[in-house]
C-alpha cells in the first residue's frame, strides 16, 4: 500500500473517448514525488519535439504533489504541464485553491488529457465515475458562470471546477485555466491547450481517503509549523499592502519597460506624493471585506473586495499592480475591474497586462496608428482602452487578433521596429521590474527561468539581500529565515558592487533557489509558504524532507529531496534543449543592455551578463551551451536522456550573447 499518493493515474483520450485508470509503480513515485517532476518525465517520454502545441498530440499533464491534500499547511497544489503554444517549450503552471485536492481525492494523483474532442465537452470525475459531457451550452461563457452552471447541472455545490473562458476557447496565448478564489494555471497558454482540445472544463468531486504513513509524527510537525508561523501570517497580512504601495509608486519606480523610460532620479521619486498614495491606499483597503485563502492555508492571502456590479474580486500579489503599472493608472477600482475581466475571460494577468502596455507604447511611439488599431486611440491612463483591449484579445477580435499571441508574435507581424518594445524572456511576457534586473541575482533568475514567473525564481532572503546592511545580513544568517547551506553564509555576508561584476553570490543563490522551487512544485506546496517570502514557515529542504518522509513512510533525506528537485529541473532543461532551446534564449530584453530606466543605472554590459551565465551553467553542471553534461545526468539517473542532447551539441554555433 502506498501512503501519500493515491496510487493511480487517469488518462482520458478526447478523440476516442477512452478513459484508462492505471496503477503507478512505486519507484516512479519515489523518483519524482509528483507535480513538476512526474509531469516532466511523462512529457519527456511522450511529447516529442515535433508535436504541435495546439494539435491533438499535445498532452495536458496534471499531477498533484505527494503532500497535496495532507495536513501540511498550503499543500494544495497541482502542476499543469504541456508544450506551450507561446514558445514551443515545456511549461508547468501551478494551481492552488481547492481543485487539486479534490482531484486527488477522486483517487487519482495525475490526470493526462490527450487528443481532441469533436465538439465542446467537459470532463466530470467523481471517484470512479468518469464522464465526458456535452459542453455546447457552456462554450462562450465566462469562467464564473461556467462553474455555477456545472455545479447546478450536476447538483453538487461542493464539486470543484477548473475551466477556460473565452480566451482559452479562442486559443489566446495568454489564456489561463481558472478555478476557485482566483486560483489558476496561468503561464504559457494553458487555457489555449485546453481550448484546442475542445475541453471547456474539468469538474471533480472525490470522497477517497488520503493515507498517511506516520500520522502522529506528521501532525505534530504540522502543529509546530503552525505555532511558529506568526511572523509569516503578519507578513502576509501586510503583503497586499506592500505590493500596492510599491506598485503605485511603481508606475514611476519599478520601471515600466513599455514606455519612454520612467524617470528614476531621486528628484522624480520624491516629487511623488508618497504620503498621499499610502493614505489613499489605506482608505481603499477599508472597502475590503476580509480575505480568502486556498485549501488548508491559514493566512490572509487574498483581499476580498466587493465589485461595483455585485460579487467579489480577490486580490493578491501582482493582481494589485500589473494593470496599474501597465496602463499608468493609479486607481484601485480600475484594478478590480481588470481582475474581474481577466478571471472571467480566463487570462493570465501578467501576460495580458504586458500585451496591453506594449500596444499603448507602440501607439504612443507612432509605430502603430489608428489604421492598425481599427480606429482605437491608445492612450496611457485610459481605463476604457484597457477594458476593450482585454475583450478584443480574448475574443481575437479586431486589433485584439494582433495581440492574441503575445508581444513577441505581435512584434513580428508589425515589424517597424516594434521588436525593440516587445519585452519578453523566451517569448513570455514578464513582471515589470526593470530596475531590479540589473542585479546579478534577479537578472539571472529571470533569464534562466523555465517559467519566467518571478514567484517561481526568487527567494525572500536573496531579494532582501541587496537592501540589507552588514549587521542585518548577519542577523538574517543567524535567524530561521536563513535557507541556504552553511557554506553559503560567506556569500551572503560579503559586500558587493552594484555593477554586477562580482556575481558569485547571485549565481549561487539563483542556482540553489530554482532547485528548491522544483522540489516545492513536485511535492505540492505553495511558493509563499516555502521560498518566496522571507519568513516562510516551511523554508528548509530538511523540513520538507521530514514532511515527505512522515507522509509516505519512506525515509527521504534532504539530499534525496535535492536530487528530486535537480532531476525535475534537468529533465525540463533536457526537454527544452531537445526542442531547440539555446544559450542565447537565456537572456533578458535587449533594452536592459541599451538604455537603463534610470540615471542611477548603467546599461548592463552583455559581457558581464555572459559571465553570470557561464558561472550559473557551471554550478548547474551544464556545458557552456547550457546543455546538461552526461555526468550531471548520470548522477540523477537520467543517463538515457543524454544521447538526444548530445545531438543538439554544437547544432547551433556557439554564440555568447554579446557576440550576436
Amino acid at each position, binding site marked *: 500500500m502506498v501512503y501519500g499518493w493515491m496510487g493511480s493515474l487517469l488518462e482520458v483520450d478526447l478523440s476516442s473517448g477512452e478513459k484508462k485508470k492505471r496503477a503507478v509503480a512505486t519507484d516512479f513515485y519515489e523518483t519524482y514525488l509528483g507535480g513538476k517532476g512526474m509531469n516532466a518525465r511523462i512529457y519527456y517520454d511522450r511529447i516529442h519535439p515535433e508535436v504541435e502545441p495546439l494539435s491533438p498530440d499535445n498532452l495536458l499533464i496534471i499531477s498533484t504533489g505527494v503532500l497535496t*491534500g*495532507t*495536513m501540511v*499547511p498550503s499543500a494544495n497544489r497541482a502542476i499543469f504541464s504541456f508544450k506551450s503554444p507561446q514558445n514551443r517549450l515545456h511549461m508547468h503552471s501551478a494551481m492552488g485553491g*481547492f481543485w487539486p485536492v479534490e482531484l486527488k*481525492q477522486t483517487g487519482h494523483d495525475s490526470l493526462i488529457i490527450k487528443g481532441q474532442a469533436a465538439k465542446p465537452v467537459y470532463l466530470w470525475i467523481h471517484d470512479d465515475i468518469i464522464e465526458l459531457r456535452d459542453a455546447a451550452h457552456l462554450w462562450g461563457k465566462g469562467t*464564473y458562470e461556467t462553474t*455555477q452552471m456545472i455545479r447546478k447541472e450536476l447538483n453538487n*455545490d461542493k464539486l470543484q471546477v477548473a475551466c477556460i473562458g473565452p480566451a482559452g476557447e479562442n486559443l489566446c496565448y495568454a489564456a489561463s485555466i481558472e478555478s*476557485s*478564489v482566483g486560483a489558476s494555471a496561468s503561464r504559457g497558454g494553458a487555457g489555449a491547450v485546453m481550448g484546442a482540445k475542445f475541453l471547456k472544463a474539468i469538474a471533480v468531486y472525490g*470522497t*477517497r*481517503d*488520503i*493515507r*498517511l504513513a506516520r*500520522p*502522529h509524527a*506528521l*501532525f505534530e510537525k504540522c*502543529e509546530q509549523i*503552525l505555532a511558529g*508561523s506568526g511572523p509569516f*501570517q503578519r507578513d502576509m497580512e501586510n503583503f497586499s499592502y506592500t505590493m500596492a504601495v510599491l506598485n503605485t509608486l511603481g508606475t514611476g519606480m519599478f520601471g515600466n519597460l513599455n514606455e519612454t523610460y520612467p524617470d528614476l532620479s531621486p528628484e522624480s521619486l520624491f516629487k511623488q506624493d508618497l504620503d498621499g498614495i499610502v493614505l489613499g491606499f489605506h482608505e481603499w483597503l477599508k472597502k475590503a*471585506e*476580509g*480575505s*480568502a*485563502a*486556498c*485549501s*488548508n*492555508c*491559514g*493566512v*490572509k*492571502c487574498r483581499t*476580498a473586495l*466587493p465589485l461595483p456590479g*455585485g*460579487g*467579489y474580486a*480577490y486580490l493578491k500579489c501582482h493582481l494589485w499592480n500589473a494593470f496599474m503599472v501597465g496602463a499608468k493608472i493609479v486607481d484601485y477600482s480600475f484594478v478590480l475591474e481588470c481582475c474581474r475581466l481577466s478571471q472571467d475571460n480566463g487570462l493570465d494577468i501578467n501576460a495580458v497586462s504586458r500585451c496591453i502596455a506594449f500596444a499603448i507604447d507602440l501607439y504612443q511611439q507612432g509605430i502603430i496608428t489608428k489604421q492598425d488599431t481599427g480606429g482605437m486611440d491608445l492612450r496611457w491612463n485610459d481605463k476604457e482602452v484597457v477594458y476593450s483591449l482585454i475583450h478584443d484579445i480574448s475574443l481575437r477580435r479586431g486589433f485584439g487578433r494582433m495581440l492574441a499571441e503575445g508581444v513577441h508574435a505581435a512584434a513580428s507581424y508589425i515589424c517597424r521596429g516594434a521588436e525593440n518594445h516587445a519585452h519578453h524572456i523566451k517569448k513570455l511576457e514578464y513582471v515589470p521590474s526593470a530596475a531590479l534586473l540589473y542585479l546579478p541575482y534577479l537578472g539571472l533568475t529571470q533569464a534562466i527561468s523555465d517559467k519566467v514567473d518571478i514567484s517561481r525564481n526568487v527567494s525572500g532572503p536573496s531579494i532582501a539581500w541587496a537592501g540589507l546592511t552588514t549587521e542585518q545580513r548577519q542577523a538574517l544568517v543567524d535567524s530561521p529565515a536563513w535557507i541556504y547551506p552553511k557554506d553559503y553564509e560567506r556569500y551572503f555576508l560579503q559586500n558587493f558592487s552594484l555593477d554586477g561584476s562580482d556575481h558569485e553570490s547571485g549565481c549561487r543563490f539563483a542556482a540553489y533557489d530554482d532547485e528548491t522551487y522544483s522540489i516545492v512544485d513536485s511535492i505540492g506546496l505553495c511558493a509563499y509558504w516555502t521560498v518566496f517570502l522571507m519568513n516562510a514557515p516551511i523554508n528548509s529542504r530538511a523540513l520538507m524532507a521530514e514532511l515527505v518522509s512522515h507522509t509516505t513512510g519512506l525515509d527521504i533525506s534532504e539530499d534525496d529531496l535535492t536530487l528530486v528537485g535537480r532531476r525535475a529541473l534537468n529533465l525540463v532543461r533536457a526537454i527544452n534543449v531537445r526542442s531547440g532551446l539555446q544559450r542565447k534564449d537565456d537572456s533578458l530584453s535587449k533594452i536592459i543592455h541599451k538604455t537603463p530606466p534610470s540615471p542611477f543605472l548603467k546599461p548592463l554590459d552583455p559581457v558581464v551578463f555572459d559571465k553570470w551565465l557561464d558561472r550559473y551553467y557551471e554550478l548547474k553542471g551544464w556545458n557552456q551551451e547550457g546543455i546538461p553534461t552526461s555526468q550531471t545526468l548520470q548522477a540523477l539517473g537520467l543517463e538515457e536522456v543524454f544521447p538526444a542532447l548530445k545531438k543538439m551539441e554544437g547544432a547551433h554555433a556557439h554564440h555568447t550573447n554579446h557576440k550576436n
Partner: protein
Amino acid sequence: MRIIRTIKIDTDKCTGCRACELACAGFHAEPKYSTINPKRSRIRVQRDEQNKLFVPVKAGPYTEAECSGRNILVIKGKEYGECSFCRSACPARDLFKEPDSGLPLKCDMCGEPAPEEPLCVKWCLPGALTFHKRVEENGPVLPAEAEYADEVEEL
C-alpha cells in the same frame, strides 16, 4: 455546577480555507490522524466565493425525516436554501455522512477525553472559530440552552 462548552463562529473572519475540515477529519480517523478526508469531517464550510460567504457548519444530530417546509434565506442579496446552513445529517442529502457507509456524523467536541481546545479551533489560524467555556451554577437546563450549547457537562 456544569460546564458549557461552545464554539463561536465568526463568519466575517472565515477565509473559507477548510483547514478545520481537514483537522476534524484527521482527528476522527481510525487510527487517529491516519487519513485525511474532509468528506468525513464533522464541520463543513459552506462556500460561495462570488458572494464572499464562508460559513462553517458543525454537524448536529441525525434527523430521520427531512423538513417539510424549507425556508429561503437572502444574504447580501442572494438567495440560499435553508439546507445550506443546516447542521443535520438528514435523509435529503449526503452532507455529514460517512461517504462509504452513509452513517451519520455528529460533532462530538472531539470526544473523550476532550482536548484542551477542539481540533477545528486549533487549526483555524484566522480566528473564525473560538472556543468558550463557562461554568454555571446548577439549575434546570433551559430548553433553549440545551438545544444550542454544544456540550453540557454536569459536574
